[in-house]
């Protein structure tokens, strides 16, 4: 193996910055999905329909935001957490807004959206670490 070109370029600070970027992107997806769902799903709307519409809204939101964050943070690193935040978050937020529209203020809903995004980003990060470790095998050069 030629070792002249194997020095790592991802420093700890850079790695932490990308992780912070992942969390920020997921939080933004959560907030924008929350806002879009709040604007579109009316109070007392059918819960099942609200979940499906919320999922569609979240999918569109995360695809659009992926165009912004993907080039900066990596396409798949943006897409995977974004998918979970947009699709599942959209469903949950849609269900909540159809049932508890008046009980949860917009400010609270936005904070919950951001917290949901960050939680998903951390979860996906840990899942990724596990998947990497599961497949890791030391590859020597013959």
């Amino acid at each position: 193996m030629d070792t002249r070109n194997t020095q790592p370029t991802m420093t700890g600070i850079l790695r932490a910055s990308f992780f912070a970027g992942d969390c920020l992107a997921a939080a933004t997806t959560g907030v924008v999905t929350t806002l879009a769902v709040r604007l579109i799903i009316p109070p007392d709307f059918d819960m099942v329909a609200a979940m499906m519409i919320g999922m569609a809204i979240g999918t569109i939101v995360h695809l659009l935001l992926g165009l912004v964050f993907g080039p900066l943070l990596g396409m798949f690193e943006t897409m995977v957490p974004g998918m979970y935040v947009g699709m599942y978050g959209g469903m949950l937020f849609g269900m909540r807004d159809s049932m508890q529209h008046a009980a949860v203020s917009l400010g609270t809903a936005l904070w919950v959206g951001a917290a949901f995004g960050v939680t998903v980003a951390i979860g996906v990060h840990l899942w990724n670490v596990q998947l990497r470790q599961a497949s890791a095998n030391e590859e020597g050069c013959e």
Partner: protein
Amino acid sequence: MNATETWNRSSRTYDWLTFGDDVRQGDDKRRLFAKACGRTILVAVGTGADIKFLPPGLDIVAIDISPGMVEKAGPRAAAYEGRMELRVMDAQRLECPDASFDTAITACTFCSVPDPVRGLRELHRVLKPEGRLLMYEHVRSNVPAVGLFLDFMTYLSRPLLGPDMNRDTVSNVRRAGFHVVSERNVYFDIVKAVEAVKRYETRMPSTAPQF
């Protein structure tokens, strides 16, 4: 729009679109490509963004189907510390003799080759026995929700950007006659570093085009 036109168009924005991937995944690419040795074929060189991850001192033929990409790769190829020849060529019809390379390298290539098994069989043909195939590719996830999402994304990515998001590239490598030595997850189970070899006893695929 055919593949050449699609990638000529993409050559203008490719480096910008892949900036994050380039920085984040560079170390994994460098680690995989460090195993290259001898005469090497680099398939789909693109704008040459991956040239900096290659070990120096190789004798490389770098190909791409897009003249626009090859033109962009020119300065990076010239800066490579080794020998690098750039050629416009289709991965499905390699204009190279049988058993002429020690290593074949691909990076995010077989998501876009229209007939991936045919392209891989071509690589099998041009590699010497015990020649090494080093692939850095994205594939369909085995996580059900993510896999379905990648199926959905393929409907958007194929006409807009070119690549499929849901290919089973590792199975295609086996189908082409290679022996997979290792398959390492780089991001999730989507982005993978795959190492395969052309076994000595493996017969040359009968479907290889004749030159």
